[in-house]
């Protein structure tokens, strides 16, 4: 049936156009959210910087206390993995990159005879690991694109519970680091035990001039004991904010690629459709000419020519 192919192609173009509209909208939304997430990460920086600053001063004040969060274990056998990815897909390799590096870590640990448990942050992480019957300790979700400090605190509390009770020897944090708008990478960071206070202070790299003669209340050790849990929360919160910004950046890129692909597909399909239409017209004309020739008696040549012109005008 002539025109059938054309109709099918027209319908496909319509559907691709709709998809393009959706991916384009998602791209724009993600773009604004990246900006906001970056803004939030920036706004949150003073807090962790100040905390690190206090730690520097404490280190200079000679506080190196024996705190549960600093407890190092010789033979690490039980490890908790805090795996942070997203609640939703359509973000390119964002979720799978995190999940894969988590899985790699877990396999390596099991090969060494270690025991693991997973704290899944983000629905996608929970889906992946629960489907494969991994040992999930607890799951969090519903906030990964816009985490609040309360969310971080809830997770940090569970992490500390596990670590304080000695149920795990070490806690690893796996999330996506936001390097720049163009670069994000899944990283595995040691979360607990914390490094000795002096090491934290050195890494902080604060100005050495400030490190003089602080007095502490109740005492250097007392301040440190109060401070370390806050430091754990702040670090986790920073990671969540980084992950959120990375998620939006990845989604923006994935949706941009999808929009570009849709555009390309529309061009390709339009060409195919035009060709199909042209072919259908040609076929119709040929049929008419053939039919007219078959009907004509060969005497009225001129009348026939007029007729054909009229027909052509109609079909086009």
């Amino acid at each position, binding site marked *: 049936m002539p025109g059938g192919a054309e109709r099918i192609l027209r319908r496909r173009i319509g559907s691709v156009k709709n998809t393009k509209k959706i991916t384009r909208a998602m791209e724009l939304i993600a773009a604004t959210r990246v900006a906001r997430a970056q803004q939030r990460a920036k706004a*949150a920086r003073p807090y962790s910087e100040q905390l690190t600053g206090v730690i520097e001063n404490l280190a200079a004040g000679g506080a190196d206390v024996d705190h549960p969060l600093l407890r190092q274990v010789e033979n690490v056998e039980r490890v908790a993995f805090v795996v942070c990815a997203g609640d939703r897909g359509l973000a390119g390799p964002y979720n799978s990159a995190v999940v894969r590096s988590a899985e790699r870590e877990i396999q390596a640990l099991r090969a060494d005879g270690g025991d693991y448990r997973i704290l899944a942050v983000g629905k996608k992480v929970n889906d992946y690991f629960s489907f494969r019957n991994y040992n999930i300790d607890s799951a969090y979700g519903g906030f990964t694109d816009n985490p609040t400090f309360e969310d971080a605190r809830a997770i940090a509390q569970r992490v500390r519970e596990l670590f304080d009770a000695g149920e795990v020897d070490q806690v690893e944090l796996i999330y996506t680091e936001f390097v720049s708008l163009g670069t994000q990478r899944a990283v595995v960071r040691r979360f607990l035990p914390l490094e000795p206070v002096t090491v934290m202070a050195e890494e902080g790299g604060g100005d050495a001039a400030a490190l003089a003669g602080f007095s502490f209340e*109740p005492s250097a050790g007392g301040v440190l004991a109060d401070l370390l849990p806050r430091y754990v929360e702040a670090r986790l919160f920073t990671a969540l904010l980084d992950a959120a910004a990375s998620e939006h950046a990845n989604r923006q890129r994935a949706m941009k690629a999808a929009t570009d692909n849709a555009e390309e597909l529309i061009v390709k399909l339009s060409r195919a459709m035009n060709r199909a239409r042209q072919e259908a017209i040609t076929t119709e004309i040929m049929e008419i000419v053939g039919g007219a020739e078959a009907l004509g008696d060969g005497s009225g040549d001129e009348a026939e020519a007029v007729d054909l012109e009229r027909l052509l005008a109609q079909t086009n």
Partner: protein
Amino acid sequence: MAMQVEFVSPEDIMYSGEGTQVTARTRGGGEIAFLTGHEPFIGSLVPCEVRVSETSGDVKRFAVRGGFVSVNGSKVTVLSDAAVHAADVDAAQAQADLVDAEAALEADPSDPEAKIGVQWANARLAAVGSGTGHATDH
């Protein structure tokens, strides 16, 4: 000479201004006021009301659930994961929390959560200018 005063919460810098005096309450040390030229100091805060006397003469009041205060030169920084401006305190809620927390403390006088709950409720009430304020020091 004025001091630079900052309240830093995990999400952002919630207050920044110039003040002549900052009053807070540290763990073990009780009420403490900082004036310009105070020696370098870091203190761990109990739930309390923090007052900032601004150079303009205004007094800004905050309720702080805990955190740290750091004084260095002419700069006072309050680090707190739960601090609210007095204007944002829900007095009715704080009053209700106070009743709950006192009941919990009654039932188990060694419950640290309840004790902090009482102090936090009192801190909020003190910040809005009603209730017992600093009268309860457990």
